[in-house]
């Protein structure tokens, strides 16, 4: 029954996809040549003007362009023209670096907040004020103080990834069952050992959920940050192609960003399953 459900769902997915592509194709078909133009004039004009081609690319245009990108993902033709693979590499490296910094800062701090009601209450106003700030609002300040655009981008990732992890870690640690901690205390387990052997495993699923939310946000933010500072990365690629008014490449970038984001999410989802245990 389960396999038949999966099978039926797959068929439905394919059907939805086919309808979508078909409608897209029909909507963006080119019409007949628009008006009569002198051949000399027509030579100076683009296909949209001469062939009545839609400004929105069709699925075939996108497919052809995507194939071009897939064929040579790692070319490097100077500082402003690199393959899609290289651009993605830069973005992923920035996200991972900023994210790991956030992990290193957020999890110990989250532990501290979760274990000590005093620190929790003391830090609460700061967290409440800093949490809702849009990551990109930090960008001008970062550029001005750090004086390096790529470190600024990493800083923005760091600052946006830290809050969900911090709050989830604190919550996870604070809500570890009192019985387990009391048992540990009865057995005279030291505080460090207690943190690692009792609290960490118990809070791990919540912590990982926080990490999963964080990586999603980090990946959302990197595109906007790179559009702002430029240079390299998938966000820069989108900006550069927008400059060129190449909607085809913008669509490809959107597709690729979606796939990479999904991969990040799936990896952390797998980790979460690994640390979850039945009570």
């Amino acid at each position: 029954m389960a396999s038949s459900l999966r099978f039926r769902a797959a068929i439905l997915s394919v059907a939805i996809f086919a309808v979508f592509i078909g409608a897209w194709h029909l909507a963006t078909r080119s019409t007949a040549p628009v008006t009569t133009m002198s051949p000399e004039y027509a030579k100076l004009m683009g296909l949209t003007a001469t062939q009545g081609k839609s400004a929105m690319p069709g699925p075939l245009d996108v497919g052809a362009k995507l194939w071009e990108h897939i064929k040579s993902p790692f070319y490097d033709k100077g500082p402003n023209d690199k393959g899609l693979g290289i651009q993605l590499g830069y973005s992923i490296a920035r996200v991972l670096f900023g994210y790991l910094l956030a992990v290193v800062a957020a999890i110990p701090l989250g532990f501290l907040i979760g274990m000590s009601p005093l620190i929790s209450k003391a830090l609460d106003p700061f967290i409440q004020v800093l949490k809702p700030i849009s990551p990109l609002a930090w960008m001008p300040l970062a550029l001005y103080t750090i004086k390096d655009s790529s470190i600024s981008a990493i800083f923005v990732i760091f600052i946006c990834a830290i809050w969900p992890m911090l709050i989830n870690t604190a919550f996870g640690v604070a809500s570890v069952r009192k019985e387990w901690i009391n048992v540990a205390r009865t057995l005279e387990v030291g505080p460090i050992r207690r943190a690692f052997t009792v609290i960490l495993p118990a809070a791990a699923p919540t912590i990982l959920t926080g990490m999963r939310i964080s990586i999603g946000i980090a990946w959302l933010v990197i595109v906007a940050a790179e559009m702002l500072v430029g240079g390299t990365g998938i966000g820069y690629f989108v900006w550069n192609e927008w400059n060129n008014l190449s909607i085809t490449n913008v669509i490809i970038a959107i597709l690729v960003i979606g796939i990479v984001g999904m991969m990040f999410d799936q990896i952390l989802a797998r980790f979460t399953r690994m640390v979850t245990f039945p009570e």
Partner: protein
Amino acid sequence: MSIFDNPFDTENPLSMGCNCGRHRSQGEHDREAQVALQCVPAESEDERYEGVVASAVMRAMFPQDVARRAFLKSVGAATALAAVSQFFPLKTATEVFAQGAPLEKKDLKVGFIPITCATPIIMAAPMGFYSKQGLNVEVIKTAGWAVIRDKTLNKEYDAAHMLSPMPLAITMGVGSTPQPYTMPAVENINGQAITLAMKHKDKRDPKDWKGFKFAVPFDYSMHNYLLRYYLAEHGIDPDTDVQIRAVPPPEMVANLRADNIDGFLGPDPMNQRAVYDGVGFIHILTKDIWEGHPCCAFAASKEFVTTMPNTYAALLKSIIDATAFAHKPENRKQIAEAIAPANYLNQPQIVLEQILTGTFADGLGNVVTQPNRVDFDPFPWQSFAVWIMTQMKRWGQIKGDVDYANVASQVYLATDTARLMKEAGFTPPETTSKSFAVMGKTFDPAKPDDYLASFKIRKAS
């Protein structure tokens, strides 16, 4: 008169002869256009440098075109050159200029915005003008004017492409914190246009434009001032009768297509791109508003200029060389090819070719020929700066008394820059101001306040 024209030539007319203004007659213009299609061997580098130095000296001695001509006519060009070299060591100056001093830094980063205004800065990379001076320059495409400003202040960029009013605004602390900026070279002159949406093709009289929505790339840009000037001359108050918004160039075409704006005064390639995509037509080129107006600029932080004078001199030489190369109409096709790839402007080559050669589709079905649609001439005339400041004041961007001449001399030809140009073998023209006319109205840089008072439409201050 362009500073690249030969000052020893008494034949070249001071008034315009042909439709592009560079030739004596239409016949000569056509002949040159013919020759341009064939391959012309470039003169040797040494000769070129010698020419540059001799021209600069000649101009310094006789800043007035008419006086120089009288002198040349009476003694002959060859004698004049010999006479000049008698008391000015032309050969040594040329050597100093050509070789330069040891560079403090060889790997440089220069930022640019992907528009045709940046042509000399960009093309100097693929065409080897930087490497000729021993520099390894990386030209980096940048997302916006504010980012360019910040990255130059951060020292991520050693120098950058800017809008010519920007260094003035930054120095005066308008729209940013005050920072002394230098602008040693103008990037391009002319080269913009007013583009309107196709639906307005019968509304060619600006008097009918009440209620229109326009876009310009930046508040502190020639685009903004020229559009406001043009509208005001036609009796439209740019602050109350129409709406003018700051919109990044690529979004101008998209907004025009989406019917969100009625037109824009924007940098190329966006005007030609709107025509190419069939969404707009070129109403008027900005050269028909002010022939020879400055647009974009090459700017460097003052710190870079003072701490690395030799590198700075070499960089400036590359830019001036590249600008001189871009000035020649016969090189324009080759330049279009060099800067079209994704690494630089990322545009269809045919679009850039139409802009640079000046033979273009206007969007209404005509092929128009305007060879100086865009031109390249680096000298930062201080009167340009004064004019820009009168417009900043006219539209309420700056208030109170402005020390026009002082700010202009600080930014547009800083004493440092003049000294460096001299060291490099250039002699900047002794006159740093020239008069010019905008839409038929002559501007006297010595009397900016009178000029300002003469406008009927302006923001009450």
